[in-house]
């Protein structure tokens, strides 16, 4: 599904290398987790994959189902099935959450040559999915993320993910700021989406999320590279001992 090979990324504006030869492969149907110290480049990876401006790829490549991601516009990557749940979701004043969602859903359908959803169909679907995530009708009407609490913003990201039904879901610290119940809701939402042709890349600092969403592989990222990969037990090790030993061991 997602294949990243020797990715080198620097900031466009300054001479600062952030990703330094990162390689990673997430096969279809699998859930991979990325853990790593603050500043190791996890969010940068997610931004570069989804096409944000300000980064320069100096080496390496990334493919989604064989298609080279890095040559595509952000909206083309979205239409190809890539989705990023943001670590810091963006507020858009004056734009109703529902309007935003419908514009996004229909833009992707149009890009894929499908017919647009009627407002009736859309409404039905969004209401059902919002209810599962306990997102109130009021929150659907309010401007996108404006005045949402931290946890509400994260749930809203998962609602978008559920509506857009991407094949490759990247979640950047979706668990940060969630209370225990919200964590369960979000995990249930994610687990419901798990399928043989959908993959997840879950960036997190906490093993707790991985109790709910069982990863197939856990990667440890440090200083712009994956330094170690292993099974779910790797997350437990981080939780207990921190990164010190792991990083020392990786050199």
């Amino acid at each position, binding site marked *: 599904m997602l294949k990243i090979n020797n990715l080198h990324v620097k900031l466009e504006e300054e001479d600062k290398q952030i990703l330094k030869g990162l390689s990673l492969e997430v096969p279809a149907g699998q859930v991979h987790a990325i853990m790593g110290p603050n500043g190791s480049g996890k969010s940068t990876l997610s931004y570069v994959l989804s096409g944000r401006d300000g980064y320069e790829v100096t080496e390496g490549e990334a493919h989604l189902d064989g298609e080279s991601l890095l040559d595509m516009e952000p909206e083309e990557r*979205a239409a190809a099935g890539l989705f990023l749940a943001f670590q810091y979701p963006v507020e858009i004043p004056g734009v*109703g959450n529902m309007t*935003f969602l419908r514009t*996004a859903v229909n833009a992707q359908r149009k890009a894929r040559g499908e017919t647009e959803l009627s*407002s009736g169909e859309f409404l039905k679907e969004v209401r059902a999915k919002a209810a599962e995530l306990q997102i109130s009708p009021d929150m659907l*009407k309010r*401007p996108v993320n404006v005045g949402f609490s931290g946890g509400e913003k994260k749930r809203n990201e998962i609602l978008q993910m559920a509506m857009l039904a991407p094949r490759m879901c990247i979640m950047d610290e979706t668990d940060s700021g969630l209370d225990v119940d919200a964590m369960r809701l979000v995990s249930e939402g994610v687990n419901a989406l798990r399928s043989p042709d959908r993959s997840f890349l879950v960036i997190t600092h906490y093993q707790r999320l991985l109790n709910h969403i069982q990863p197939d592989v856990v990667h440890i990222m440090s200083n712009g590279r994956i330094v170690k990969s292993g099974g779910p037990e790797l997350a437990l090790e981080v939780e207990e001992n921190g990164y010190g030993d792991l990083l020392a061991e990786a050199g």
Partner: protein
Amino acid sequence: MTATTDLDVREGVDRETVETVQNMGSYKYGWDTEIEMEYAPKGVNEDIVRLISEKNGEPQWMTDWRLEAYRRWVTMTEPRWALLNYPKIDYQDQYYYARPKSMEVKPKSLDEVDPKLLATYDKLGIPLREQMILAGVEGAEAAPAEGRKVAVDAVFDSVSVGTTFKDELAKAGVIFCSISEAIREHPELVKKYLGSVVPQSDNYFATLNSAVFSDGSFVYIPPGVRCPMELSTYFRINAENTGQFERTLIIADKGSYVSYLEGCTAPKRDTTQLHAAVVELVILEDAEIKYSTVQNWFPGDEDGKGGIYNFVTKRADCRGDRAKVMWTQVETGSAITWKYPSCILRGNESQGEFYSIAIANNWQQADTGTKMIHLGKNTRSRIVSKGISAGQAQNTYRGLVTMHPRATNSRNYTQCDSLLIGDKCGAHTVPYIEVKNTSSRVEHEATTSKVDDDQLFYCRSRGMDEEEAVALVVNGFCREVLQALPMEFAMEAQSLVAISLEGSVG
């Protein structure tokens, strides 16, 4: 926006034209109607003024009124204080009167109107048949498409083509007709109110309009009547090298209410065209007028060629206590916009509101705002202005708030936001504030920002292309004003915002 009509237009022809329209690029109203026109000779002089008056079958007092204005106009000079840069206008190099030949003998009913004219309005989505308008507003997803009646007066170049729902309105005592008809049929009202809000001598463009205005709309709402439907006028400039000078007069008598909409479009032409309108609103005790404009005159092409020069004087006089007026404008068209819809808050506790979206893209220049003149006690005014500049455009908000010595305990609140798209455009805010008593308060807030890259990326990461993303973010920025529009116009205005920003990114 409109339900299908029963217009007798040959189908094949229409489809072809529609396709041509769609191929014309971003200004979708840029086509013209090939129609046989009757023109007055080019230029303006006393004979032309007399001719216009005669063509409209006006009484002598009206002819005299026009001539007086004309004689004053020749002594005046064109104002140049606005932040607008345009070549000298040759007032003798245009036509001041153009009407479709078929309108020479005024059609008695729509069945007698030239089908080409009807087709023009049909293509514009303007209902000349009496019918329901279907509307749904973005954001109000739950609202089902609902039929509402809107009465239309359609002005094509210099003449009114027809007014709908007249009979039904007459039952309520409402007069809604073209101003030329009002001059003939309701001289007492016209004599009493015409020029009473915007005097002949007001300013260069208003004075010119007073001399040569050819048509426009007239509304009278009797005391205590809530107008049973929305009223609207659609102005269409079609003829080349022709100025349009329309005149609108609306009188809301004591305790009455009316909501009035105005829409404007013009064909794409590479020469500029002059439009100088005057709108006068008279609001008596406890009455209220809502006046909404969606101005989409041709803005000129990407290189700044052609477009409408839009010099408009709009003013509301809240003559009675507790009178209320609300101006809402969405200004997306015109090469040059010079327009300051104003409120004279004469009555005690009268209220004026001004909601504005002004979009300037490519080489457009807009200098627009409002004047709130507080004369009565406890008067209130509110200004919400959203200016969007893109391309090489310049957008100026110019607003005046005055509190006269007598206007004690009055309040004004002004919110003025500018949004810049790209780095070659400009936004300017020029507030003038005069407070001449100690109990009144004026608040002014202004912001200028660039369209936010993070917001655009967020939208694009969800699958919207850059233009869609910009349109969405800008519509959000304008939301407060869009919400002030009647539902019939809100949707249209939203898509207009998107259309007028096409090509502004990337």
